């Protein structure tokens, strides 16, 4: 990302040291973000879409908070659901107490209660977790994740056992007609929190602690020798991540009005945050936002489309880890860099070829996966199934042969396109490097 800005910054030598946090580009991006949050329910009007948008809203907060650990601090946590989940539980108890009238907390502040709870548990548990970094850190978070998840079953009074705890978000007097009963009102509450929290977490990346956290990620040993206690740096970052995770958890509570320990605190949930933050892209601030959108799309739409959706998800994750470890955000940034140097147009045809051939190959593979699933799960319904409009016979030779043929052809052509593309890609990169060098020499 930085290398792309090198030349432009170097050319304006005098404005070097006066980097303004409020430049025009940023103002536009943040305005767009706000407009998108406001307009989204007007564009997608169905009630399913509204539920999904609400989920995306708080998952953006959660994935961004997770990325404070993963992307910015290099801490691979397997237990982020502990902080979102405990945030949810404290929030739901606060809501129920408010309903009874024993405390007076307006619903708009419930997410903050969740946030404070998240921060509190991060202070408590993070003290142990952040003592170590790297693999040990990951192991401890996994252990604590399991610990808290099993605790949830041991204390049904607090966690509601298997049935969970329910609440009603409509309590107190309606404020200017806003009761938070209708889902649209909840969406806008979530959207407002989403915007503020995203801005706050972005601001965090520009603070001394935020920067030293990057330094700790890159080279913890060196940080020790410039005056910083790396454990302390990790600990503080962990608390901040816990705070925002708790806010996300609180918003989830308001959205669903039910929380179960087996789901909200589970290590599987933590794994989901990890997976989608990574898919979105941990190396860029906005990556987890993409991840959150994908999480909802995958778990709501893809799961509707196919029973094998987790398998597909696993395959996508596998390929991303191997070929694009920077996630979707890095793919976007790479292409923006090309666009900046006016090279993107040369690649259109290649992208089209890559996409087309990949689609064919994936189709073939998907047919086989669907047929296998059909044989295993729906054998009673007979061997025939419809997949994307086509009728396949899972027991028939032709369907299998056809699927294999399509897959092999698709992937074969894809491989050819890929080789061609790699050559083209490296030439273009070289050209850009040349241009940068020339820019530096001027």
């Amino acid at each position: 990302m930085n290398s792309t800005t090198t030349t432009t910054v170097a050319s304006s030598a005098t404005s070097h040291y006066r980097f303004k946090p409020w430049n025009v580009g940023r103002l536009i991006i943040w305005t767009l973000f706000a407009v998108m949050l406001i307009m989204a329910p007007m564009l997608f009007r169905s009630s399913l879409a509204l539920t999904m948008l609400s989920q995306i809203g708080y998952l953006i907060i959660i994935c961004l908070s997770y990325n404070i650990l993963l992307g910015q601090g290099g801490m691979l946590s397997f237990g982020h659901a502990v902080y979102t989940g405990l945030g949810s539980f404290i929030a739901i108890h606060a809501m129920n107490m408010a309903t009874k009238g024993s405390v007076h907390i307006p619903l708009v502040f419930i997410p903050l209660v969740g946030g404070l709870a998240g921060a509190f548990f991060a202070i408590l548990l993070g003290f142990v977790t952040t003592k170590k970094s790297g693999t040990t850190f990951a192991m401890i978070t996994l252990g604590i994740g399991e610990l808290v998840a099993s605790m949830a079953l041991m204390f049904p009074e607090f966690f509601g056992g298997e049935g969970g705890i329910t609440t009603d978000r409509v309590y107190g007097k309606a404020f200017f007609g806003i009761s938070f009963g209708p889902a649209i009102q909840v969406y806008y509450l979530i959207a407002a929190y989403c915007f503020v929290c995203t801005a706050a977490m972005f601001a965090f990346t520009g603070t001394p602690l935020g920067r030293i956290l990057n330094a700790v990620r890159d080279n913890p040993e060196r940080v020790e020798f410039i005056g910083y206690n790396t454990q302390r740096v990790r600990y503080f970052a962990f608390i901040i991540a816990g705070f925002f995770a708790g806010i996300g958890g609180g918003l989830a509570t308001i959205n669903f009005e039910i929380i179960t320990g087996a789901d909200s605190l589970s290590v599987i949930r933590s794994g989901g945050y990890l997976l989608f933050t990574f898919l979105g892209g941990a190396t860029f601030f906005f990556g987890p936002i993409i991840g959150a959108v994908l999480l909802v799309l995958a778990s709501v739409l893809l799961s509707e489309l196919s029973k094998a959706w987790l398998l597909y998800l696993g395959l996508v994750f596998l390929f991303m880890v191997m070929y694009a470890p920077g996630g979707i955000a890095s793919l976007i940034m790479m292409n923006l860099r090309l666009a900046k140097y006016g090279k993107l147009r040369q690649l259109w045809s290649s992208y089209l070829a890559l996409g087309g051939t990949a689609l064919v190959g994936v189709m073939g593979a998907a047919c086989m996966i669907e047929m296998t699933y059909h044989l295993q799960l729906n054998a009673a319904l007979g061997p025939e199934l419809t997949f994307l409009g086509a009728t396949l016979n899972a027991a028939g030779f032709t369907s299998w042969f056809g699927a294999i043929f399509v897959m092999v052809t698709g992937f074969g052509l894809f491989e050819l396109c890929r080789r061609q593309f790699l050559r083209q890609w490296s030439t273009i990169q070289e050209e850009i490097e040349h241009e940068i060098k020339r820019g530096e020499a001027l």
Partner: protein
Amino acid sequence: MAADNPTNTTYALELRDLRKSFGKTEIIRGVNLSVASGERVAIIGPNGAGKSTLFNLISGRFAPTSGDVILNGQRINGLAPYEINRKGLSRSFQITNIFPKLSVFENLRCGVLWSMGYKYTFLRFLSNLHDANERAKQLMEMIKLDKKRDTLAMNLTYAEQRALEIGITIAGGANVILLDEPTAGMSKTETTRFIHLIKEVTEGRTLLTVEHDMGVVFGLADKIAVVVYGEVIAYDTPDKVRANQRVQEAYLGSVVADEQGAGH
């Protein structure tokens, strides 16, 4: 950073009977060394003599088995590296040790932050910390990397990375600087330029350096400490060390002969 009191005879750095064992093997075997404020001391010795271990003991990477490290009159042995750094001692590393994914400017600014009192703050923007930014900019000019401000450290040339390493080391304003083989792996011309740079940026500070290049040592140091087999066998001005019979026998003779043979 305790201010040096001229009437007091405290040294900037003092090692008293410092010992370090790994298992049963004693690597540092009772080192005594006193470095006056503003002095430049080179530590030389054959490979495996314990020079780097000595640096690690002083900077807090390892705790000594026994003996004392005294920095500006305060005992610092057993303290964590960051505590020692805060008391005014900073070090560089033999293997380049920088923040590869941060830009040159960010590398230096990270080095500056603690000493300017910004600590763990997350309620202020870095871009508004004018003193820290100004200081980082000055450092960048001092190490002659101001044209590479936004280049990621991992994309610098080796010599530039070594310069950045020095920059980070001096960034916090420590008055005792430890440089572990600063010119290792550099060409002759680069080395000459680099020595000049080191002299410039450590002006007025106490400097300890481990060095193999005898040309560098005699050009840079006010005093030389010869470490052989975990002990300081000589500690004196360059001329006297060169003339020292024991040093000649133990170590220096062959090296100096090599250097002079190479037309140095």
